[in-house]
């Protein structure tokens, strides 16, 4: 069966510090991968998605970046965190087919920028 991991689970970082959040998927090959951010009490905002190694699409302008160094690894980064980067970050995957394929979400990372 497929599983998706995210770490760390929680993170407290000072403003201006770098960020690296990692997501890995097991039990599937060539998945589509996604990074979402959820502000407190709000819905999910798609930040990045990837359909293959090295292929990253950005949905919103921001000081965050994403990379996919391996087929089942997706990394969210920042060189200098802002207070507005605080939130709950969710990684998700789906099979790389059109149709009714749903997205499966990881447990998330709660980021607090102070």
């Amino acid at each position, binding site marked *: 069966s497929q599983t998706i991991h995210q770490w760390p689970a929680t993170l407290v970082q000072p403003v201006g510090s770098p960020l690296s959040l990692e997501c890995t998927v097991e039990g599937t090959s060539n998945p589509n991968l996604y990074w979402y951010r959820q502000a407190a*009490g709000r*819905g999910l905002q798609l930040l990045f*998605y990837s359909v293959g190694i090295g292929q990253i699409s950005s949905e919103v302008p921001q000081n965050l970046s994403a990379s996919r160094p391996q087929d089942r690894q997706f990394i969210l980064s920042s060189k200098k965190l802002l207070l507005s980067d605080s939130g709950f970050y969710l990684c998700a995957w*789906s099979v790389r087919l059109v149709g*009714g394929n*749903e*997205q499966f*979400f990881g*447990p*998330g990372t709660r980021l607090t920028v102070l």
Partner: protein
Amino acid sequence: AQTVTQSQPEMSVQEAETVTLSCTYDTSESDYYLFWYKQPPSRQMILVIRQEAYKQQNATENRFSVNFQKAAKSFSLKISDSQLGDAAMYFCAYRRGDDYKLSFGAGTTVTVRA
């Protein structure tokens, strides 16, 4: 861009009773998919139910069912025989048929009273 609207920020239901969550969406597409996701206090996003736009029959999953009104662009979720474990935030989501990306509503928080 597609928009998904959930007009009820909060709903409360007595245990064993029924609650209906509303969702409307805006699209000019004919091929698309609709989803309801549940986010319990653990923050893990869990797929509850999925509906293909080309299907007239409403989807059901045990105590969860939808009322899909394509012409009205409405996709409500009914939770029957509510249980304490149903307490969560529920998100409606839309995906165009030939796309990978999900658009989420702002969510509805469901409280179940014992």
